[in-house]
């Protein structure tokens, strides 16, 4: 966050973002190499990437985009949303509804108009909110609008009423929880607990073909890159600094004349849309969307990814999402019965030893090294590492969401 202001809005994006440049490079390489190797190289080849791996990576990429969305509001603006899974799920449902409509008369009951679960519930016509979802463009629009509008209405209410801190967190959680229960209900018309599944094809291409999967993978990479750039654009602008100001001291920002609620609403809506896009790309790759995605615990996990990666660095959010989910995939396969110990341990150790998350590791090591050097110069009296010193030394890592006492002026 230094010396960026001399540059125009576009050039500044990747200046001072060595990590981000590397990340984008890796993503770009992945976007080219992985699909090609999957499609062209023979299965035995060392460089062959299996469809399993590609699909898995695609899923991680969606999670990474979701993590960016959360980091944008949490890391930069201090809005701890414990309900962001809701926006992800809504995007997913919008996509899922499109995919359902694509099934046409190939459902088990062979009804050309109605998805199977509706036939089964004796519904005779498509409910109004399903209209239009047979059109791809409309569904894509809804991928953005459904989460966006919900975020707008919810955010406008909450931010105008100055609901902050943990109060906001908890009502976002209440929101996703309420949606979870609502979507469970068969009467809602979204397939109840089973959700939407058994998709056949997208834009006429079979979802089971490797080509389609490769395209979806590339789309996920592109979405992540785009999401990263958009977020980067926001946080490196002056708006980004206003967000940090709001995170640090909301009322100070107000006294400077910034309409805090507008700023919050803006990032909240942008973030919800990013989450929606992530959800939309996720659904065709995993093949199912169901109310489980609304579960509060899922939203908490997103926060965990960001925290593990390093809150307040977009790049860290990506790393965190990838790392935690890879760990989960690996542990649940390799240590099916003990993996919770490992994942739990990973989280605890991260907080203890990597206060700024995985991406903070480097900076941390550097600082440690300098302290060591310093100490060696100081010869004796090693300083007792006390927490006060640590937190004083790096106020930016102190959380300004001071839960008990409200925010500071």
């Amino acid at each position, binding site marked *: *966050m*230094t*010396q960026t*202001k*001399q540059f*125009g*809005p576009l050039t500044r994006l990747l200046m001072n973002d060595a990590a981000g440049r590397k990340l984008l490079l890796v993503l770009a390489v992945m976007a080219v190499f992985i699909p090609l190797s999957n499609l062209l190289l023979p299965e035995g080849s060392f460089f062959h990437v299996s469809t399993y791996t590609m699909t898995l990576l695609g899923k991680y990429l969606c999670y990474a985009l979701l993590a960016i969305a959360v980091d944008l509001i949490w890391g930069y603006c201090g809005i701890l949303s414990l309900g962001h899974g809701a926006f992800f799920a809504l995007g997913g449902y919008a996509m899922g509804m499109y995919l359902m409509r694509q099934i046409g008369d190939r459902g088990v009951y062979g009804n050309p108009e109605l998805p199977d679960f509706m036939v089964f519930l004796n519904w005779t016509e498509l409910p109004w909110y399903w209209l239009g979802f047979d059109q791809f463009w409309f569904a894509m629009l809804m991928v953005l609008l459904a989460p966006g509008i919900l975020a707008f209405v919810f955010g406008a209410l909450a931010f105008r009423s100055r609901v902050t801190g943990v109060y906001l967190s908890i009502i976002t959680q209440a929101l996703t929880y309420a949606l979870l229960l609502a979507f469970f209900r068969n009467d809602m018309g979204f397939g109840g607990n089973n959700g939407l599944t058994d998709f056949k094809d997208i834009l006429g291409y079979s979802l089971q073909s490797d080509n389609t999967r490769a395209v979806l993978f590339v789309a996920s990479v592109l979405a992540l890159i785009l999401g990263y750039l958009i977020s980067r*654009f*926001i946080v490196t*602008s*002056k*708006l980004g*600094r*206003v967000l*940090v*100001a709001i*995170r*640090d*001291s909301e*009322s*100070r*920002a*107000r*006294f*400077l*004349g*910034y*309409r*805090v609620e*507008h*700023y919050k609403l*803006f990032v909240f809506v942008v973030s919800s849309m990013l989450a929606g896009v992530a959800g939309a790309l996720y659904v065709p790759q995993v093949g199912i969307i169901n109310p489980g995605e609304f579960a509060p615990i899922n939203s908490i996990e997103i926060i965990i990814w960001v925290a593990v990666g390093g809150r307040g660095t977009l790049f860290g959010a990506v790393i965190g999402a990838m790392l935690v989910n890879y760990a989960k995939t690996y542990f649940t396969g390799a240590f099916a019965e003990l993996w919770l110990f490992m994942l739990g341990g990973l989280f605890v150790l991260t907080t203890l030893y990597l206060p700024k998350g995985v991406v903070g590791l480097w900076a941390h090591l550097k600082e440690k090294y300098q302290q060591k050097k310093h100490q060696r110069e100081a010869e004796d009296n090693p300083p007792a590492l006390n927490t006060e010193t640590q937190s004083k030394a790096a*106020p*930016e890592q102190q959380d*300004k969401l001071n839960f008990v006492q409200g925010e*500071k*002026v």
Partner: protein
Amino acid sequence: MSLQTPKHIDNPAVLYMDGVSVSFDGFKALNSLSMVIAPGEMRAIIGPNGAGKTTMMDVITGKTRPDTGTIIFTDNANSQHDLTRFDEADVANLGVGRKFQKPSVIESLTVFENLEMSLKGGRSIWQALLHKLTAEKAQKLDDILDMIDLADKREELAGNLSHGQKQWLEIGMLLGQEPQLLLIDEPAAGMTDEETMKTAELFKRLAQKHSLMVVEHDMDFIEALDCKVTVLHEGHVLAEGSLATVKANPQVIEVYLGR
């Protein structure tokens, strides 16, 4: 945004306060307070601890809603606004800037970014998103940095400043904001005598273009400001006039200055 029912004041004051009262759980922090600040005026406010000075600023800036009373602000375009209806951001955008008693800067932004954020204009989302620092603005920031003696801390996080440095930074932010009316709560606290004088000089220069309301307990500083002084006590005005007159007022001596 002008006032609905213009209660016209002949000699437009920048700030017109009449009968403002605030109470907290029955305790009257402001008690029918009235005061008028003229354009370009500098006004010093003194008064015992707990007299209601800070509360008064809270009321003007929209942080606290008064129980009764009117507060009318006349902007440069000569339109009048009833401040009791606006929130903090609105009041700030109308042209009222404030420095807090307890230094408050944005700790995880650098000194430079703090100042940049305070610069006048560009408060809307789109402006913030597409904001570009012009050479002119950059120059202005550099000037301010020099003035507040923090040029060498330009890239330092504001949270890492000492108490006094934060005070200075906050004054700098006020300068960047260029408000029409400045409310300054205890600027000299924690400054050396020299710095105190320097601050007084600075304010006097500002007073030509802006209106200022300065709260202090440091009598030397008040003296250096050389302006009309209002003494608050128990939420209303106890005395008003030149420093010499109020200093001679036995009540002021009794409750404030001591013998």
